Each structure stands twice: as C-alpha cells, then as structure tokens.
C-alpha cells in the first residue's frame, strides 16, 4: 500500500513536471448565422498566413511563416507565387489591381514588392527610399499604392514607377498603420494595432478616430466589402464587423491555438476567410472560412 501511495505521489510529480500542456482551441460564433470551417492548414503546405486576398475563386496569401507569396484554391490547392530568394523576408499584407498585379509589404525587409500578372516578382520601392518596415497596404483610386510604416509611424504613397512620397506624416499620430483599406466612398480606414485605434481618413484628408477601446479592441487587419468593414483582432482573438453609424458587432471569437487571427478577406458570396497564425516560429497556421448557415 505504501508503495502504491509513493507511486501515486511520484507519478503526480512526474506528470506535473513533464506533461506537455496543449492549448485548447475553439471558435465561438457570437453570430449564430455563421459557421466556421478550416479550408487550409500547414499539412497542406501553408505556413503562418498574414495578409489574405480573395480574387476570382482563389485566395492570395502573404505567408509570413513560410516567407512566401502563395495562392490557394479549392481545386488547385496551394501554389507558390514567389519566395524569399527574391529578397523579401516576411510578407505582411497584399493588394491586387484590376490587371492582376499584386503589391505586398514586408515588415522585416521593408519596401513595397510586386508580382506582376505574369508572375514576375520585383522590388518596386525599397528601404533606400525610406520604406523601412512596411505594414498595411492599400490601392488608392488613382492607382498608386499607399503603404504604412510601423517604425516611422507614417503612411507613404508609392507610384507605379517606384517614386515615394509622404501621404500621412508623423503629425497625424498614427503609431503603427498595420492595415489599410478604402471603402466604396473613397474613405481610407487605417488600423493601428499599437495604439489600438481604428481611424478613418475622409475625402477631405481629415483623420477621425472611429473606434478606440484599448481594453477590448485592437484592430489587426481590416477589409471592406459590401458596405461593411471586417476586422480581425489578434490580441483578443476576435472577428468583428463594423458598419458606419452602427455598433461594432462581434461575429466570432477564437481561443487557444486559433487566437492569433491575422489576415481577412471575403468572396463574392459573402463568405469570410480568416488567416490564423497558430505558431509563427514553427510556421504553422490555418485559413478558416466563415460562411452563412444554409437554410
């Protein structure tokens, strides 16, 4: 009996010292009309996705974990578009123009990079032009590219020939322009996940603080579609939807390994796609589709 008792104590002690504690992971749908489904994982070649963009049946991915630009589709699976051999280090966010040219940012290598419609990658404007740690990226109505810099706390305009100029200087007080997107009225939304503020730059170039709730809101990536702004929050593991003059609405909450939600995009049918970095160091991640329940 004493041996049994000592064995229990020893096993308990051993279990407490050696047990590898796994994180519980769940998605809580605060909006019952949606349901989540994992469509791509690291087992299918995905790393840790950051920026996502849906276009013509495919999702284009700035894969921060694999240091690659990728394209995923339900039929073709995951395909590499470009990798770090071209000089970029950590693809952060991306946009695509009507001709199919991709532009993406890189918070480690800096600069604005592009992959043209034929699939040729190149550096459009690099660190030497003052783009040190590029984060959010948006396609302006005039065709130029706006890119936020997290180290310089500014937003720059980059023309198609690589000329760089200041668009929003330090005086605007944006600490980290992590993500940017234009709405259908020409307003520019800017997500600052250092100060935990969502800004709106109106057509008169006036900056407004739309949402500033440090304790419960930290915008990571924003995406505008059909009159609504979709927002991921990696600090709190949430997916929000925002419409002007309405309350911020939580669609889903992510916990455990799925908490670090990053990029977001939507397709024509209104399905939402969210990139999750489950473990950036080990290059693990998922893409979750959040779609409306049928019936």
């Amino acid at each position, binding site marked *: 009996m004493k041996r049994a008792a000592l064995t229990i*104590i020893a096993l*308990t002690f051993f279990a407490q010292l050696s047990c590898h504690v796994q994180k*519980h992971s769940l998605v809580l749908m605060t909006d019952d009309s949606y349901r989540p489904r994992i469509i791509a994982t690291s087992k299918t070649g995905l790393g840790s996705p950051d920026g996502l963009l849906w276009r013509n049946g495919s999702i284009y991915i700035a894969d921060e974990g694999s240091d690659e630009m990728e394209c995923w589709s339900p039929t073709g699976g995951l395909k590499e578009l470009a990798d770090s051999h071209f000089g970029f280090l950590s693809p952060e966010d991306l946009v695509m123009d009507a001709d199919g040219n991709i532009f993406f940012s890189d918070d480690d290598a800096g600069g604005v990079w592009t992959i043209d419609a034929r699939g040729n990658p190149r550096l459009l404007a690099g660190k030497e032009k003052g783009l040190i740690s590029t984060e959010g990226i948006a396609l302006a109505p005039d065709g130029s590219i706006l890119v936020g810099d997290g180290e310089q706390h500014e937003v720059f305009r980059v023309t198609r020939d690589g000329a760089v100029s200041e668009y929003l200087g330090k005086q605007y007080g944006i600490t980290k322009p992590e993500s940017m997107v234009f709405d259908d009225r020409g307003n520019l939304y800017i997500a600052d996940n250092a100060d935990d503020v969502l800004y709106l730059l109106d057509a008169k170039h006036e900056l407004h603080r739309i949402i500033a709730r440090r304790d419960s809101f930290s915008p990571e990536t924003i995406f505008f579609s059909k009159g609504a702004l979709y927002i991921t929050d990696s600090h709190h593991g949430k997916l929000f939807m925002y419409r002007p003059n309405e309350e911020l609405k939580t669609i889903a*909450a992510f916990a455990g390994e799925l908490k670090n939600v990053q990029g977001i995009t939507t397709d024509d049918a209104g399905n939402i796609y969210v990139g999750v970095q489950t473990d950036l160091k080990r290059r693990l991640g998922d893409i979750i589709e959040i779609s409306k329940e049928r019936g």
Partner: protein
Amino acid sequence: MPLSLLILLSAGSWFMTLNNQLLIAINSVAGRSWLFDNVVAFFLDNDLAKAGVIGCCFLAAWYGGKGADQTARRKILLTTIVAAVFVIGTTKVLSKTIFLPRPEIQSQKIYQLEGDQLVEMGRMPVRIPLDEESQKNYHALLSGDVETNDLGSFPSDHAGFFLVISLGIWLASRRLGWLALGWTVFVILAAKMISAQHTPLDVAAGALVAIAELAAFRYAAARKWFDALLDRISQLTLRHSALSSAFIFAVAFEMSSTLVHVREFLGLLGAVRRHVLGG
C-alpha cells in the same frame, strides 16, 4: 468494433447525459430570483464567506488539542498542505490537457478543433444567474470574451483544493472537519454548480484527485523517515510558536483567498523567466 468497447462508449455517453441532466437540474434554481442569485454570488465571490470559513477551521485545528494530540494534528495538517499543493498542480495540468469548457460557454454555438477540423459541440441550455457579476460575464461572453481558464473546467480545482483541505481538517479534528466539509460541499461547490461554472462531473473528478492524493500522502507519512520528519517539524512549530504562527497565518490567508496571491507570484516568476532568460 468489439462489444466491450461498444458497451464502454454507450456507458460513457449515458454518464455524460446524466452529468448534463444533473447540472441542468441544479442550475434550474438560478436566474429566477434576484435575491437568491445574489446570495449565491456573494458566497462565490467573497473570500471571507467562501474560503474564510475553511481557513478558520484549519487554524482552529492547528491550534487545537494538547500535547501528543496537538503534534498528531499538526502532522496531519502539514501533510494536507503538501497534498493541497499537489492537488492544485494535478487539477491544473488535467484541466489544461482535457478540453471541456465551462457549461456557460457550452451554452453558446462553439466549435472545437479536433485534428484539422472544427467540430460543433452540443449546446447546454444553462440558466444565467441574475446577479451583476454573472450578467456582466454573460454579456462579455456574448461579445466573444472567452478566458483561457474557462476552456478547461474538468476537473474542478476548487473541488480538489477545498476538499483536500477539508478532509485534512477532518482527519485532524472530526467536528471542525465536518464543518469544513459541509461548507465546501453545500456552499462553495453547490454555488459553483448552481451558477453553471462546473458540472457534477468536474466536481467529482476534483474530489477524486483530492481523496487519492491525500490518501497517498497519508500512507507515505506512515513511513518511518517521513513520520520522523513530520514529527520534527511539528515539534519545531511548537517550540517556535511565534514563527510558526506567522507561517500558518500565511497558509490560512492563501487558503482563504484560493491561492490567488501565490498564483500571481508564480505568474510574475513566469514573466521574469520569459523576459530575462527569453524562455
């Protein structure tokens, strides 16, 4: 599929259904009376009302008795303190390993990650108490605020911790032990189930851990070297009564606050390790 496995699965399913039905029955008293819910919440949230009674019983047992009886009591209580640390460790490790969210969370539409798939979990129709704290937490849940601690409710660390202490007190002093056990079961744990923070299964598993580990330590304490060590420490506490009183005050204080300060201290140590050693 072998017949034994089939029987085991159906028994497990029946057991879980029974557990859920029991919880729903216990929880059915919540959300009906503002006064009742506030009384329950008071005993859950107020450290003096919740755990202070257990701390008082522990102190009374520690200082009770005379001569050899007092030494014997202290030996039991010292073993109980060590067992309680192990019980908390065991319940924490288990709850972080076994995925079973609190019933309140299970009342929502949730999907659990199983392999590479998100699988919808069954919803538990629990009632939410009407007290301010419960309502605030529920509205936070509706906004998607999920605490990591709420994802692993099995086994109940409250059940494990307070039952191991109460059982230790019971072994040292029957009267005080009955009081502590009664308070633990009918006040602390009942309130946890009424407010849907734990199911009866969580509580039973916590109790099992408490009983097994205290029994193990009591058997180990019967070994000569362990008994001699406990005897020596007990004698020391009697000889240096001022110092031992200070120690036992700290123990009772932490018991009464459900180890919240110790946990904070361990959290600080973890943060220091991460920042200094980069671990």
